[in-house]
């Protein structure tokens, strides 16, 4: 018993063939589970040139190595696939209760290829795995479909469901996979892949427990962390955050912080604690990355004060195994005139994608859009980025009022924004053109490469400004899933304290913020360490908000040793992280990706620089920084392709030979 099951399930929707396969221990020692097992499997099974929406693409649902063990904040699952947005590696993770359910069925992962003739759902428990007709739920939104299918499949154990909404069915490239009543594994276009396979849902109802090597030691660590989180409270109200943002945005120096601060914020407010702080500090991109707090000023951002949302929060909830509990349910009957009763508390990303990014100050419409997108299964970040793009197209006469069916797509026109989101979900009129995101829409409109087509590698970026934190710009541009805000940032790194465990991870120390804008070896090595540790976290099933508590609080290395009985050093675990990240990169190379094409848009790098606000005059030399990162990673400095020497060093001889 080592925390993992040692088996994976393969399902071919074209033939109906279902089989399980044993996974050798060595695979877990080299890649853990989660994203590592996912990329190890998909690299072998998806042929080069495979159409992301064709039968050869494989969609995987994988559980983290520590999920199901007595560790805490380790309950995230990951969807893995070839991305229809980038044409390269795609993954996306989510919390809720789906991750342990995979293991309770007796598998570490479920991998699905082929295309079904008719809509189906996959039912799995600890005894059977079967494809069942889904005609009766095809066309339902994700929440209604989940409720119906749970009722239908409930025998003894309540089933857990991952499902696509109508956006996935309509193969919108910016759709995700939904579980637990509206949580979404949103990024990279996994919903479109699932929809292309006519797979409406995966329903899990197993009851197998997960064993591990040393549960007692794991519980000791869990109790220690849980006690710390219980005691960590922030004695302020959310109204103070805008002032804190002003202070943070003006700081000339940065220093390592204690990550427990994050748990204080998360357990009380959740990610919305960054709403006003982000605007005033310069973290939030405003007006499609062309504005600042000077544009989205007090009369606007005061409406996003987290306390306004706390007033309508009816209850909090925790994902499986979480000791923090950032989730919440908010009542929106009043905000939506009774159309919806409640919604998951919106994340900061949604608040800003439909707040500052589109200059919207109407909180009610953001709450409404949140539930619309959750039910449709559409990625809120990409949807917000695409709406911002559409507004700028309208401003520039590229989208006319007639094309927009009479909508006046002006900044902050909240009713027009809601109407446009509905059209995107339904794929009606101009919404059909926009439903695949900025990359496809800009190509169809003939404006690819224009400053207002803001993406990294075709993926709409997260709501964190690279001009404030250049390291996040590096991660936006070099990660095999570009535009991803959860891989790393300078702020995250400062909270990890990785250097206290890993011999080669640079100590942040106290440093000048201005130094972050100059390409250098230390910054490059920090971003390498950050991405390796993030892949370890995703292999273990860990949550980003646990990861940033830091290695001395959320003791990943110790849990992994206690769970598996391996007794590896932190340096040895970081090699696993490096191997996972390198294979994610090699997946893209195998499928024809040019890593330089993932470079974030010029506007995100401050070219031209902003004329006002906390990020005024700041530019990020992103190309040079990408080269530095690749060099520090042991990948080719110019091309971003992992070198033969690095592949050999990581024990990836077969892949080195294939790519000679």
């Amino acid at each position, binding site marked *: 018993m080592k925390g993992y099951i040692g088996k994976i399930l393969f399902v071919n929707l074209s033939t109906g063939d279902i089989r399980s396969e044993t996974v050798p221990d060595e695979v877990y020692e080299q890649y853990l589970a989660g994203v590592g097992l996912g990329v190890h499997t998909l690299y072998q099974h998806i042929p080069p040139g495979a159409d992301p929406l064709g039968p050869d693409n494989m969609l995987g649902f994988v559980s983290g190595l520590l999920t199901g063990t007595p560790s805490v904040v380790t309950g995230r699952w990951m969807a893995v696939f070839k991305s229809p947005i980038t044409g390269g590696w795609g993954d996306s993770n989510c919390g809720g*209760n789906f991750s342990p359910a995979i293991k309770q069925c007796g598998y570490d992962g479920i991998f699905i290829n082929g295309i079904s003739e008719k809509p189906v759902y996959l039912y799995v428990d600890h005894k059977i795995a079967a494809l069942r007709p889904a005609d009766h739920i095809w066309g339902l939104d994700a929440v209604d479909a989940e409720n119906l299918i749970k009722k239908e499949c409930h025998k003894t154990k309540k089933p857990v469901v991952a499902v696509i909404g109508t956006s996935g069915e309509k193969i919108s490239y910016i759709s995700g996979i939904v579980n637990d009543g509206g949580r979404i594994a949103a990024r990279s276009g996994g919903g479109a892949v699932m929809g292309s396979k006519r797979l409406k849902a995966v329903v899990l109802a197993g009851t197998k*427990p997960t064993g591990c090597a040393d549960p007692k030691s794991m519980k000791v660590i869990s109790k220690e962390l849980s006690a710390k989180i219980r005691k960590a409270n922030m004695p302020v109200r959310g109204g103070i955050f805008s002032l804190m943002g002003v202070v943070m945005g003006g700081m000339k120096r940065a220093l390592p912080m204690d990550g427990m601060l994050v748990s204080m914020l998360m357990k009380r407010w959740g990610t919305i604690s960054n709403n006003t702080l982000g605007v005033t500090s310069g973290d939030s991109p405003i007006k499609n990355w062309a504005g600042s707090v000077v544009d989205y000023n007090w009369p606007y951002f005061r409406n996003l004060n987290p306390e306004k949302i706390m007033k309508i929060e009816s209850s909090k909830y925790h994902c*499986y*195994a979480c000791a923090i509990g950032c989730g919440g349910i908010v009542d929106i009957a009043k905000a939506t005139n009774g159309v919806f009763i409640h919604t998951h508390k919106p994340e900061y990303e949604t608040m800003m994608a439909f707040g500052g990014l589109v200059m919207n100050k109407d909180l009610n419409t953001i709450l409404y859009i949140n539930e619309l997108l959750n039910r449709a299964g559409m990625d809120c970040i990409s949807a917000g980025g695409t709406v911002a793009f559409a507004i700028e197209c309208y401003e520039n006469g590229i989208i006319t009022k007639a094309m927009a069916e009479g909508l006046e797509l002006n900044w902050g026109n909240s009713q027009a924004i809601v109407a446009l989101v509905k059209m995107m979900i339904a794929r009606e009129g101009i919404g059909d053109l926009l439903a695949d995101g900025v990359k496809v829409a800009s190509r169809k409109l003939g404006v690819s490469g224009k400053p207002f087509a803001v993406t990294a590698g075709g993926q709409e970026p997260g709501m964190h400004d690279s001009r404030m934190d250049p390291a996040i710009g590096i991660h936006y541009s070099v990660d095999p899933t570009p535009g991803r805000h959860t891989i790393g940032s300078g702020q995250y790194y400062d909270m990890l304290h990785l250097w206290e465990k890993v011999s080669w991870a640079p100590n942040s120390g106290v440093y000048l913020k201005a130094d972050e804008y100059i390409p250098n070896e230390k910054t490059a090595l920090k971003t390498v360490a950050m991405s390796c540790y993030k892949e370890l976290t995703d292999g273990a099933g860990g949550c980003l908000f646990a990861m940033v508590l830091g290695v001395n609080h959320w003791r990943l290395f110790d849990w992994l040793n206690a769970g598996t009985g391996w007794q590896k050093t932190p340096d040895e675990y970081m090699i696993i992280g490096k191997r996972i990240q390198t294979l994610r990169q090699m997946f893209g190379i195998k499928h024809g990706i040019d890593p330089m094409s993932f470079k974030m848009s010029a506007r995100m790098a401050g070219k031209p620089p902003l004329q006002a606000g906390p990020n005024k005059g700041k530019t990020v030399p992103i190309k040079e920084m990408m080269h530095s990162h690749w060099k520090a990673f042991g990948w080719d400095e110019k091309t971003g392709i992992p070198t033969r020497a690095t592949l050999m060093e990581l024990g990836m001889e077969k892949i080195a030979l294939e790519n000679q």
Partner: protein
Amino acid sequence: MASKIPAFNYDTCIACNICADICPLSCIDMKKKGSGSIKKLYPILALPDTCTGCSICMNGCPVDSITMKSTVLVNAKKSYQPSLDTE
């Protein structure tokens, strides 16, 4: 009813819902409202008659907040409680 059923220590429970998730018969629900400003939901044994006393929830709890209590004692306490209230 099984001879032993889970009892929750809400002073140490972290509301992580592992117990509710791993119960093979879904007997545990996150329904108990916590006190204080943070409105967390804690576990309760929603289906005591369905519970088999298998201890999976106790073993899975990462912070040892679940103990298995004898139902003989639990029932005895329950039947004794009303007489206390009426006195």
